[in-house]
């Protein structure tokens, strides 16, 4: 199938200024080769490097010149060796001339295939275009580029240029870069060439189409404005999910000696009666049924065909509407694109006029579509204008499927205004949120938009193909961890975080989140135990920025000697089991008791007091006033008995008393009683003295 066999020449700039970007280029190019090995094994690939010290290409042998261009790999069918070659590209030492490389690449394609070859011929240029190309012998650089571009056209080649800029390359001469951009721009104007600028490693990974998908129209025919006016259009898919490859089930039943074993697993379906599972029902005794309430209505497919809904193939306009009537979240599926019939200037004009008018007036069109004859349903969708900013590309429309009345789930949710005041952000909080939203900008002006969908690769697929390649060499290889570049897709940008540290800290300090104490049994921990620094991971469904203060790094299990207060606080705050509160209080009581008992001339009193204050606070928070009050009473009695009444005095002087009703509702002690308790102690002291 020569028509489906593509040829591709990768032109890679390996000059010193590109070295920073080369690891990503190695990844994306080897990914391309890996996917070709699976999906189009007969494609042919060549690799040309430029910016190298030496020169190794046919042109330099034949006519001279073309220095610093090396053909690393001649055109040949993809194989495992190519993947390995691409994973370890040699680094160059010279500045590269991309035009030389393009000519070498074209020359290779022409020599190999001639003009009759039916398959697609592609050149793929990866460079930073930072260095000027040589002046031609005659004419200007522009003329030379134009000539080459025309040549490319006559040979039916396509070119894709990915220009690496920004943080990935060093400083460079701006005027040279502009000149080069201009030159590369000529290619995209004159030929079917694409030019992409990338600034981050992530978008470099996403910039190259690693898998070829031959586009198929889902509809060709008339877009009916009315029965009197029709526009010829072709409809393609604009987005379509590239699925994770479906792996086959593996059977190890075949003997290891069997060289031809497929190891495949077949699936066999058997239809059995519910009442008599031993009996298999043959196909002619089966009929489909639909549920209608508790009943099942049998209906044969022939009957069904006779009565079912059969719309005619057509795409009809229902009318125009204000864009604001169609809310973005109603879009149901992947997106289609309506392009005017290629070569039909009238259709192109008509689409262009409508698209421009719709854009100016902020309108959208509502369509009713039946793509194919015999399709059993209709699709209602919205057409939005896509006015092209490239002169080479005609204007088109995007088409999104809209839901039918049955598809919309109308759930009522409470209005935010009806929430209690404690849930409403204060002015300060709102200000912090505003700053947060403003500063965490992924599309700052003057810089490349971070993570644009068009340049962001799917990390799952990246990881799968890398693992596949690893496994082909070492069958037991583990799943590779996410590298820095892919991490940029799944986690917040560290640089952006550190730049906005202060905004973030303010945001965090103004809002308080804590786990609901009523939900003690929750098996999930919402505030994650994570080392601080990466705590912007908005932890859960409702976007909590998680505060590390709540994360207890080490789980405290007893109140120790060194830091009894801290241990106690950590323990009483543990939420993994309700028993911790009780245990913490008990441990603390023992601790205080020991401290008082072991004190020599009151040396432990301050520490004991600290512990008592902590215990008091904990008991108020946990609504356990009785525990504390009983303990304090016993402690005082104990002190008096053991002639340690100086401690009671010490307490009284520090005004530590029972927990009163005003502090904790459950307490049985009134305010007066609490105050009197102190007096009592003093009085008793007096008595014993």
């Amino acid at each position, binding site marked *: 199938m020569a028509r489906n066999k593509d040829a591709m020449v990768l032109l890679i700039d390996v000059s010193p200024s590109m070295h920073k970007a080369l690891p990503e280029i190695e990844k994306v190019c080897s990914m391309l080769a890996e996917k070709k090995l699976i999906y189009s094994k007969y494609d042919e690939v060549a690799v040309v490097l430029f910016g190298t010290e030496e020169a190794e290409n046919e042109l330099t042998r034949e006519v001279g010149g073309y220095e610093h261009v090396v053909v690393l790999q001649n055109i040949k069918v993809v194989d495992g060796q190519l993947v390995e070659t691409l994973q370890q590209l040699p680094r160059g030492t010279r500045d590269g001339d991309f035009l030389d490389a393009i000519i070498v690449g074209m020359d290779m394609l022409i020599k190999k295939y001639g003009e009759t070859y039916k398959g697609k011929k592609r050149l793929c240029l990866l460079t930073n275009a930072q260095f000027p190309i040589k002046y031609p012998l005659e004419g200007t650089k522009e003329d030379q580029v134009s000539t080459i571009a025309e040549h490319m056209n006559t040979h039916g080649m*396509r070119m894709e240029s990915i220009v690496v800029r920004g943080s990935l390359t060093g400083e460079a001469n701006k005027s040279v870069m502009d000149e080069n951009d201009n030159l590369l721009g000529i290619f995209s104007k004159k*030929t*079917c060439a694409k030019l992409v600028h990338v600034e981050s490693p992530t978008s470099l990974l996403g*910039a190259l189409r690693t898998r070829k998908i031959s*586009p198929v129209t889902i509809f060709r025919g008339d877009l009916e404005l*009315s029965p009197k006016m029709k526009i010829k259009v072709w409809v393609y898919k604009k*987005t379509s999910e*590239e699925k994770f490859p479906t792996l086959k*089930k593996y059977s190890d039943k*075949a003997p290891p000696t*069997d060289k031809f074993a497929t190891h495949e*697993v077949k699936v*066999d379906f058997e239809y*059995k*009666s519910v009442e008599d599972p031993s009996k298999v029902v043959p196909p002619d*005794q089966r*009929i489909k049924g639909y549920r*209608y*309430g508790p009943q*099942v*209505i*049998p209906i044969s497919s022939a009957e069904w065909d006779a009565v079912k809904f059969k*719309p005619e193939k057509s795409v*009809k306009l229902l*009318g*125009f509407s204000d864009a604001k009537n169609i809310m*973005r979240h*109603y879009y*149901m599926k992947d*997106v289609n694109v309506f392009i005017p019939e*290629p070569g039909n*200037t*009238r259709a192109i004009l008509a689409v*262009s006029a*409508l698209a421009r008018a719709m854009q100016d*007036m902020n309108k959208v069109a509502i369509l009713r579509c039946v793509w194919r004859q015999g399709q059993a349903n209709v699709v209602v969708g919205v057409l939005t204008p896509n006015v092209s900013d490239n002169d080479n*590309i005609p204007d088109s429309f*995007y088409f999104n499927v809209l839901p*039918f009345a*049955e*598809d919309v789930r109308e759930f009522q949710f409470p209005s*935010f205004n009806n929430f209690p005041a404690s849930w*409403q952000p204060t002015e300060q909080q*709102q200000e912090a949120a*505003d700053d947060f939203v*403003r500063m965490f900008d*992924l*599309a700052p002006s003057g810089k490349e938009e971070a*993570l644009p969908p068009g*340049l962001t690769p*799917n990390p799952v697929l990246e*990881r799968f193909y890398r693992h596949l390649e690893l496994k082909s060499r070492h069958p037991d290889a583990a799943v590779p961890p996410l590298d820095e570049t892919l991490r940029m897709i*799944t986690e917040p940008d560290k640089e952006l975080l550190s730049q906005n540290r202060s905004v973030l800290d303010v945001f965090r300090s103004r809002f308080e*989140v804590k786990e609901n104490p009523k*939900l003690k049994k929750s098996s*999930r921990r919402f*505030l994650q135990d994570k080392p601080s620094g990466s705590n912007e*991971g*908005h932890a*859960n469904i409702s976007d909590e920025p998680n505060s590390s203060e709540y994360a207890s790094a080490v789980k405290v299990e007893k109140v120790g000697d060194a830091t009894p207060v801290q241990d106690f606080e950590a323990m009483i705050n543990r939420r993994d089991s309700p028993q911790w509160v009780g245990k913490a209080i008990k441990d603390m009581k023992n601790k205080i008791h020991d401290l008082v008992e072991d004190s020599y001339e009151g040396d432990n009193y301050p520490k004991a007091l600290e512990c008592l204050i902590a215990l008091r606070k904990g008991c108020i928070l946990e609504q356990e006033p009785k525990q504390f009050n009983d303990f304090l009473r016993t402690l005082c009695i104990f002190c008096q008995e053991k002639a340690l009444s100086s401690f009671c005095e010490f307490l009284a002087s520090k005004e530590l008393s029972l927990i009163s009703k005003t502090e904790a509702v459950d307490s049985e002690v009134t305010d007066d009683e609490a105050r009197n308790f102190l007096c009592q102690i003093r009085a008793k002291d007096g008595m014993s003295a």
Partner: protein
Amino acid sequence: MEIDPDDLFRDDEDDPDNELFQGDRKDDTHFHVAVSCIAQSLKTQIINNSYDEVAICFFNTREKRNLQDLNGVYVFNVADREYLDRPTARLIKEIDNIEESFMSKIGSQYGIVSGSRENSLYNVLWVAQALLRKGSAKTADKRVLLFTNEDDPFGSIKGVIKTDMMRTTLQRTRDAQDLGISIELLPLSRPDSDFNVSTFYSDLLGLKGDDLALFMPAAGEKSTAYNIGTGETSCFLTDSTLLKYFNLLISHIFRSMLLIKTERSFICADTGALVQGSAKRFQPYKTENIKFSVEELLEIKRFSTGHLRLLGFKPLNCLKEFHNLRPSTFVFPTDEELIGSTCIFIALHRSMLRLKRFAVAFYGSSSRPQLVALVAQDEIISAGGQVEPPGMHMIYLPYSEDIRNTEELHTGSNVAPPHANDDQTRKAAALIKRFDLKDFSVFQFANPALQRHYAVLQALALEEDEIPEIKDETVPDEEGMSRPAFVSALEEFKQSVYGDNYEEENDAVGNGKASETSKKRKAVSENAVKESGNYDWVDLADNGKLKDLTVTQLKYYLTANNLPLAGKKEALISRILTHMGK
């Protein structure tokens, strides 16, 4: 929904007053409105939530039928069904036709009259509550829907008896509400006076102040549009997913009407042995099969434990029309697990709305981890109802692999494609103005395929003779399109982009393009007709000699007569015979 039905319950009042039966409007009596509303919602319910259970009682009736043997209450039911049970085809059929037999079988008689101590409203609430005892309050959502056109049920009595009756009725309501039963009122206004909720029912429903103002007494009038019976209302992540009608396809059934279950078994392709739960998968790569364990595959897809991780914010215009893959998901805050969440959510929500930005987040679901856009949605309220709840819409963004550059596909010719000039754009704008769908809403079209499917199903289930015609609401408005203003705008636009001789040239283009294939086809069929003329088909058929001909020869006849050419020789012969009428 399998095990916890929401118990729907519906009370229907029928009044003795003639006005309810005769009504003010031409054909619709209030009773008719109520009954058709019930029938309509039963039909929706049996399809959407067929596990929901329902009972229908009439009150203020002459006859009585209920377990408590109370006067003036009639629980409507059909065979093979408990009072409160899943709706059946038969129930729908009978409720649809109840109007004819209602007076003779059930009869209507206003129960609350002075002199008797009967309180039919009290009775019916009691019956309802008893019926709804089934099922726990936690798993089921219990509702009583009350249809009535009497805003003052105790109007005819006076004094102590009245206050006493009102008190006991309200108490009964409160008891029911304590048991987790919500009571909703669908009032039907009389022609001369609007239904005054505050006379009695506001107390019954517990409406106060502002709520009362919002309560629209017209609820019952648009009965057919009123859809009763959506299930959960308190979920936090909800999809607006396509309702696929094939989910109703349960399984194959026997001719003798027995359900069939499907059994799946895995067989090794090499040995034919049965494979039990194979844990390995493989992918052919290079020259060998690379094996993966299920755990490894899961590991590849695993990125983070957090569900949704915020990465930053972008201006709304970065979200392009084609950044879409799937129906969106709605995000609403909850304080159930983390106190303070709602506050942060609201603050971010407001900031995003004000600064016109959306959030980009990584959604680490196990099936497809992907980037999502969180677009803040402000609450939209119109005519007393919530059109859009406040919250965020999670829009699933495509990756670069998922986006295709189809626009650029056909570039490459040296001639740049034309773009419309200002005049043409102006003409197009004029056309757009003429053809504006005002107040278009995505809710306005019912899916014709789905409607047809259910209509057929319903007709079969209810043994109706005719399948009702379903109006396809999605066809263009032909009438509107023939308006002169529109036609002239269209003509002008057509003139400006297509030029004068469009029709003729269009035909010419059509012929030119069709030439290749159609010429060929034409030649073939002409040839076939000629060849076919060489045979005496009737004679061949009569003598059974058709089978002596070759397939090619047989096909001459089929082509000449525009018959399908597919199938084996026997099929061709039988097709020829059928065509000849033999």
